[in-house]
């Protein structure tokens, strides 16, 4: 049985994989915007899998918030920093793209394996929810570790957070609203402050390559 939620969750993983596979920063940020749109649609889709009904106000608000922040505000901020700093590509990533893609494949497989063994005690509308959440967390990690550009690392953090967000959605019906609020807060603050930091990095070093940030070591 495949529902709308299944399709969306699969698309989420594909978008994350695309980010690992591309070296263009703009494409990376746009893919994260696509993830934002998917996350906006997901709360409503998850409710519809329980039967065709009008989406609740709760799901609607959640969708609206995710769409606004993850699909529009943050990608715009990141694209502006790319323009201002004048970097377009990931030059010399820590791990080559081929290695990254291989690693990504292994991580996605691991996420599905874990997802099968960690079944939720309650129904959440899609069997793909846990694997998709874990895959995004792991792929986000990979992006942070394997890349040097500050922008890509922020996008990696976004992917990681999106994974946490997806998991939170599965829980939303059973736990109070604090869960979603904290996810949105997490997102807002984490990236916003990092945005400020990027601004300072590009001002100080004239570029956003975090390899310049290696003077502090043993």
């Amino acid at each position, binding site marked *: 049985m495949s529902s709308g939620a299944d399709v969306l969750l699969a698309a989420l993983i594909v978008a994350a994989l695309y980010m690992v596979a591309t070296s263009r920063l703009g494409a990376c940020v746009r893919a994260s915007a696509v993830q934002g749109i998917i996350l906006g649609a997901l709360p409503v889709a998850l409710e519809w899998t329980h039967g065709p009904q009008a989406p609740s106000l709760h799901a609607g608000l959640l969708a609206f918030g995710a769409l606004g922040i993850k699909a529009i505000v943050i990608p715009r901020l990141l694209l502006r920093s790319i323009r201002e700093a004048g970097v377009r590509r990931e030059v010399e990533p820590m791990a080559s793209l081929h290695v990254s893609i291989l690693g990504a494949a292994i991580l996605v497989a691991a996420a599905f394996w874990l997802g099968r063994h*960690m079944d*939720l*005690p*309650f129904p959440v509308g899609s069997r793909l929810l846990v694997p998709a959440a874990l895959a995004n*967390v792991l792929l986000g*990690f990979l992006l*942070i570790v394997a890349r040097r550009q*500050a922008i890509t*690392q922020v996008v990696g*953090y976004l992917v*990681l*957070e999106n*994974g*946490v967000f997806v*998991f*939170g959605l599965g*829980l939303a*019906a*059973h*736990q*109070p609203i*604090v*869960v979603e609020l*904290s*996810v949105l*807060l*997490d997102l807002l*603050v*984490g990236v916003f*402050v*990092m945005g400020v*930091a990027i601004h*300072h*990095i590009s001002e*100080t*070093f004239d570029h956003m390559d*975090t390899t*310049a*940030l*290696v*003077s*502090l070591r*043993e």
Partner: protein
Amino acid sequence: MTGAICLVVGFPAVVALGVWRLRAVRGQLAGLIGAAAVHLAGTAVLWRAPLPTRIGSLIGIDALGLLVLSLVSVLFFAATLYSVPYLLDGTHDAASAPQRFVPCLLAFLSAMSLVSVSHNLALLWAAVEATTLASAPLIYFYRRPGSLEATWKYLLVCSVGIALALLGTFFLGVASTAPDGQAPGLGLDQVLAVAASLDHRWLRAAFVLVLVGYGTKMGLAPLHTWLPDAHSQAPSPVSALLSGALLNCALLAILRFYAICVAAGQAAFAQTLFLGLGFLSLLVGAALLLGQRDYKRLLAYSSVENMGVIAVGLGVAGAATYGALLHMVNHSVVKAALFLLAGNVLRAYGTTVADEVHGVARRLPMSAALLTLAAFAIGGSPPFGPFVSEITIFFGAMGGSAPWFGVAFVVLLGIAFVGVAGTLFPMLDGEAAAGGRSPAERVLTVLSPAALAFIVVAFGLYIPARLDDLLRRAAAALGG
């Protein structure tokens, strides 16, 4: 009671807003000192309150929270007094940004207080996140490439940690949800009440994520990498608070989950993880202490090592739980004193490279004396506080099922002591280049570290009955 809790969390935040637009340094300082004093008074009131007390569904105070809150309060007051001359005559670095310093410091205090009184895991998480946000601008106080690098690492590494901790909190939410969809919520007492029926797989996964996530912030290896950079680049009073107060807040968050594991009968699993990460931190800390040439980084690695000591104590469990909590207190006090003293040296010499510093004993006689005392204390030598807590953990390990843990523990502590002493003591010796007493040594810059050093000596000889009672209650809540 309620008033005191509102005061310690709310008052610093209100003052922070009040001084945000204030340009006059003296006005900001008055606000800072006032807030620190009110916070100390509020904490003193809480010492008289019956424990544990709950207020509403989110806030409450228990022995563990009160311990952490008291450390935050005392250290903040000490750091505040120390900061007065720091801010009044500028620092050794012109490229600093003092306008936002006081508001951020107060917001940091408010966030740390909220961590210690949170009785809801979601609120706890949000409060820990708030401490990151409030402290990041403090690390970037000196507008230098080095501090920018430190701030970037701090934000990125701690944000990843905090995201993992949130995922762990969600996992706990799953573990507590019954198959029919009934969930007790994320209130600490509610979760503890259903601890026996928690799903063990999800609980274990939750604890792993939380330990790694909050452990990042606590400075446990292998995710300690931000710590030496942030602690060495921040201004000295901030370093003292980061090391002495903030690490405890992250530890408290882990202990909240540990208490749930203990109640759910999963204590052994958690203790194994504590032992693993604790020994790794001890090893990494001790190895990087040896031959460390930057004395502020030295103190930071010593924090990693001491967090390892606490984690080992929790892993050994039993009587060592008490020792671990006592070590939390001792480490905070002595490390704050050390960072403040390092600040005096830095102001007099303008460098953090130990090889370029000679003759501290002549130039800063008071600081040098206190530095000697504090270095012996942090190394675990008698008759100071850390000796008592470390020996408690050691005896706990020797009396337990695996005595070789105790042996390895002592060997690593010995290596760490050699590392600290080998870098700090040569700095005291020799001729001072400039000669004469430095103006860096003022009453206020020596008073705070001296008071903290006095506490460390006192705790080595005698632990006050009320503190002992508090430690026992806190240890009992953790199954110790």
